[in-house]
């Protein structure tokens, strides 16, 4: 095997497209209006989109594989997890300007605790859940509680963080006061997204076609909600009336009633829907992993417009979240 065949055989991962020419793009400058920040896992770039014109303003580089984001409690910095790049990048959430980066091992998904004290990071590749002191980003505790830690959510009182383990098929509850695991519960094949909702923990079962509802006290499954094949992630609308579930294998969104968890609607969304954000105009901005595009879905017209971005768009943040308090609250950011 030769050097370049080694390159070709090493999947992996990530980074900027050859033709992206970030320096040229930067020279084009950014607008002053709201922006969408799209994390292109396969291209190792961050696309900055003007939400008004829907044009890509520029692309910023990362090391390898930007996946998910977290907004600091003061909303002044957006943290971008670059998993195989072993780094967190800091961006100005209003402009997308890069503010530096810090090396930490394998940050895949990350979220600040509601009280702003901790930043929990799931290390999907390295099978660790790392809890950092939010103020200093120093490691508070490292947990080895399952294989392929994926998504996470907190209780509103910040006492417990729940993380899904894709390989183990479990959800783990970690007590942040004592820094000890409280319980580990089998929930089904390949759990991914987790969301605290109405005193329940919801987790999307990607190896199946449903959302499992867990009792936060012990992880027992109290109910399953049929969605579609490859249920991946879960989002509460800003008006708190509906829940959207992205289904990766089916290529669809499932809309659930947030109160009853009853089925409302299935929306075809080919392209591998992953992360999404709700804009103030009611549209959904959706990262489509397999089509190098962001979908902008209008629930009123049921139409989706597409914006070409970098390779394998994964996480998406929209700057309207900085002032949209209902949306912030729905995402447990306010």
């Amino acid at each position: 095997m030769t050097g370049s065949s080694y390159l070709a055989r090493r999947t992996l991962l990530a980074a900027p497209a050859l033709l992206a020419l970030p320096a040229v793009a930067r020279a084009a400058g950014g607008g002053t209006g709201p922006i969408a920040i799209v994390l292109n896992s396969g291209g190792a770039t961050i696309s900055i989109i003007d939400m008004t014109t829907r044009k890509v303003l520029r692309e910023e580089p990362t090391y390898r594989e930007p996946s998910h984001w977290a907004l600091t409690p003061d909303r002044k910095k957006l943290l971008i997890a670059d998993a195989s790049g072993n780094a967190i990048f800091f961006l100005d959430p209003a402009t997308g300007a890069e503010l530096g980066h810090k090396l930490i091992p394998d940050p895949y998904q990350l979220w600040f605790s509601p009280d702003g004290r901790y930043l929990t990071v799931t290390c999907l590749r390295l099978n660790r859940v790392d809890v950092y002191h939010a103020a200093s980003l120093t490691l508070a505790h490292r947990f080895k509680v399952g294989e392929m830690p994926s998504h996470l959510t907190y209780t509103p009182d910040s006492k417990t963080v729940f993380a899904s383990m894709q390989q183990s098929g479990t959800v783990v509850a970690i007590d942040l006061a004592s820094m000890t695991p409280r319980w580990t519960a089998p929930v089904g094949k390949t759990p991914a997204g987790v969301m605290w909702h109405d005193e329940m923990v919801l987790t999307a079962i990607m190896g199946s076609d449903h959302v499992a509802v867990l009792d936060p006290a012990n992880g027992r499954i109290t109910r399953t909600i049929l969605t579609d094949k490859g249920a991946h992630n879960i989002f509460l609308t800003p008006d708190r009336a509906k829940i959207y579930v992205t289904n990766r294998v089916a290529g669809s969104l499932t809309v659930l009633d947030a109160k009853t968890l009853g089925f409302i609607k299935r929306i075809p969304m080919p392209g591998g829907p992953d992360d999404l954000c709700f804009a103030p105009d009611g549209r959904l901005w959706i990262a489509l992993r397999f089509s190098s595009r962001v979908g902008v879905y209008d629930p009123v017209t049921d139409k989706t417009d597409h914006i070409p971005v970098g390779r394998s768009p994964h996480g998406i943040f929209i700057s309207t979240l900085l002032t949209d308090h209902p949306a912030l609250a729905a995402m447990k950011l306010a």
Partner: protein
Amino acid sequence: MGGAASSLLAAIPAHPFNDLAGWIEQVAVLPVLYRAGLMQWSELSFGWTLVAVYGVTQMILAYAVCVPLERRFPIERWENAKPVFVDVFYTFLARVGILPVMTFVIFYAAQVQLDGFLADRGYVPPMLETMIPALFGHPVVTFILYALILDFTDYWRHRLSHRFSIWYALHAVHHAQRQMTFWSDDRNHFMDEILSFLWFMVVGLMIGIPPLQFPLLILMLRFVESFSHANIRLSFGWLGERLLVSPKFHRAHHALLGAGQDSCNYGAVFPFWDMMFRTADFTRDFGPTGDHTAPEAMASGSYVAQQWSGLTQVARTLRG
């Protein structure tokens, strides 16, 4: 620009390889993973699919360029080209078959162990871009640096595979081919592949995972390697021969005199390393290829016969 031209440009995907891989992922790979209960690999399977798409594209490119040239300017013509078909099988196996997935899985497991070990001791695994911070934001330069380093280390791997007789007993499978064509690049004993893989794994763990974001560059490098094996009477000229490995340069390595422990022109993509370490030979003409010392089964046998022959050669070498 006219409206029609604009529409045409808009219709061209910005990331054609990625979009094709994404389509395959959605219609074929994910449904299989889903049914098999392996959705935990869905994050990584997209990368595997992408590598397979690159591999097929590279094969098509090599075929489209090399076949007409091999027919128009052949070094040799053969009555019976049956041994070439085995090389075609090797190529499929290496580029789109099970080998890329196997090597990836092994590398992934090793990297998880090592990176986890380092992380638990407060270290972040090294990468070229963190060792040389000025590289950040210059991905093309970074990629070229990775390519140079990997090609340099490959030069030494290749040279050592000739130097040690037990290693050469395996590598002889690559050299035994008397009908060398662009398909011969991937004609390797599986244990030789494993040794190569381990070699590059160590390098990869020392300098980080090379970024795979440059499909065009990767395709070009792979093309150079296939092209250098082609049965084409072609030299790149005095300067070109010293910048990129050509069919003439690499054929000298595969010539009967180049087989065995005392060879020349070990470089895969760049001839610099041979020039630097005095193993370059630009004087040899287009001689016949093969290895007189290799068993006939290794030269003209089936895939299984060649692999078995490699193992028996190793056993013979061990016995002295």
